[in-house]
């Protein structure tokens, strides 16, 4: 078996890299694929929290590198899905504790046993980014329809294009707000795609469910009703190679829907 190593990166912090990682990983595992997620954000680890695995971590990636344990011992199995594993970052160390070569080595070893290796990249374009990208051959660039996030994504794309090992990169547009796009207050999906001239792999709507799912340590892809969950599941299916159309995020059209929205906003204001 030779698994695909995909780095999930963004440049800017807070656009949803880790959330994306947790959800795509969980969604891929649900399709029966063997998935391992590597948190490379040394010193600022969070992937364990989003997956609800924070109390199960014994060894971290630094322990593997410094040979205090074997690679397999450091892999934490997901609560629900045995196909899903996490290699956690060390919380007490900084980005220099693991080198590019070491990460590459770990990715190569994991490729033997897993279909997908998802690397959660820290924010920024410094060594942490370089390390995370080192072992990967594909990338998902997460951004939101905000100027600063798009600008940083452009920077990241420039850096990824300069890397020979990265064979392809795709864009994931997170926290999209259809009503703001409709009123021309926010850049549309097409705007961002045109500006970055990158291929799209997913459009995730803004969803308050993400907050509760993070609080519970339960990725939103497990919530059948959630639109963001559905969108993330679709991203996973596209990664596998299925041709899945993008979700229609438009609100109901027509005068009746508009009147309803108008009255509901009135109610909200006079409370």
């Amino acid at each position, binding site marked *: 078996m030779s698994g695909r190593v995909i780095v999930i990166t963004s440049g800017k912090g807070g656009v949803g890299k880790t959330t994306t990682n947790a959800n795509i990983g969980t969604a891929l595992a649900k399709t029966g694929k063997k998935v391992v997620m590597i948190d490379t954000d040394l010193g600022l680890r969070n992937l364990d929290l989003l997956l609800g695995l924070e109390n199960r971590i014994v060894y971290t990636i630094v322990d593997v590198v410094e040979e205090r344990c074997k690679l397999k011992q450091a892999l934490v199995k997901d609560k629900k899905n045995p196909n899903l594993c996490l290699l956690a970052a060390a919380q007490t160390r900084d980005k220099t504790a693991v080198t590019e070569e070491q990460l590459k080595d770990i990715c190569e070893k994991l490729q033997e046993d897993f279909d997908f290796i998802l690397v959660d990249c820290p924010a920024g374009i410094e060594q942490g980014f370089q390390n995370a990208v080192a072992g990967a051959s594909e990338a998902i660039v997460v951004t939101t329809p905000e100027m600063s996030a798009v*600008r940083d994504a452009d920077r990241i794309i420039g850096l990824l294009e300069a890397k020979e090992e990265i064979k392809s990169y795709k864009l994931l547009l997170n926290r999209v707000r259809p009503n703001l796009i409709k009123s*021309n207050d926010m*850049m549309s999906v097409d705007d961002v795609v045109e*500006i970055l001239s990158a291929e799209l792999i997913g459009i995730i709507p803004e969803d308050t469910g993400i907050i509760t799912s993070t609080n519970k340590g339960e990725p939103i892809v497990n919530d059948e009703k959630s639109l963001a969950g559905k969108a993330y599941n679709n991203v996973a299916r596209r990664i596998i190679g299925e041709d899945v159309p993008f979700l229609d995020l438009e609100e109901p059209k027509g005068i009746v829907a508009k009147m309803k929205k108008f009255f509901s906003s009135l109610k909200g204001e006079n409370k």
Partner: protein
Amino acid sequence: MILANLYNKVMGFFRQTEIEEVESAKDTACNRLRVVLMQDRTNLTPELMDRMRKELVELLSKYVEMDKDALDLNLEQDGDQVALMLSIPVIRAKDEEEIKEALAKEDEEEEPQDEEVVDEVDDEDSGDEEVSEEPDESEEDESEDEKEDKKD
């Protein structure tokens, strides 16, 4: 208060259906972002762009009379390619004599520099070919000029 609120809401509701002429927040974002990304991608700072604009005005003024303040120089994106777009409002084309005059003036200014360069070449190596080329070119130029003068 509630009534005023309601009035505004109702008016706002009808106003929404009108076509807005003011640039939307989305368009502002797109335009600002395009400009800033061009700068990020090319390392051309606003200062450098301004300098390029000035130099272009200087260069083009020899050939055409133009509205210098309205000269528009921008980086634009067309698909994957970045293009340098220059828009020059031409007031009138300069006639032949004006152009010649401008060129002659420039040649005068540049001549001393040219000689220096030739000298350097001479000092460094034989450079026979380059030296011999120089007079040829100037002769051609002069003969062309003469022909044109005769036509006039």
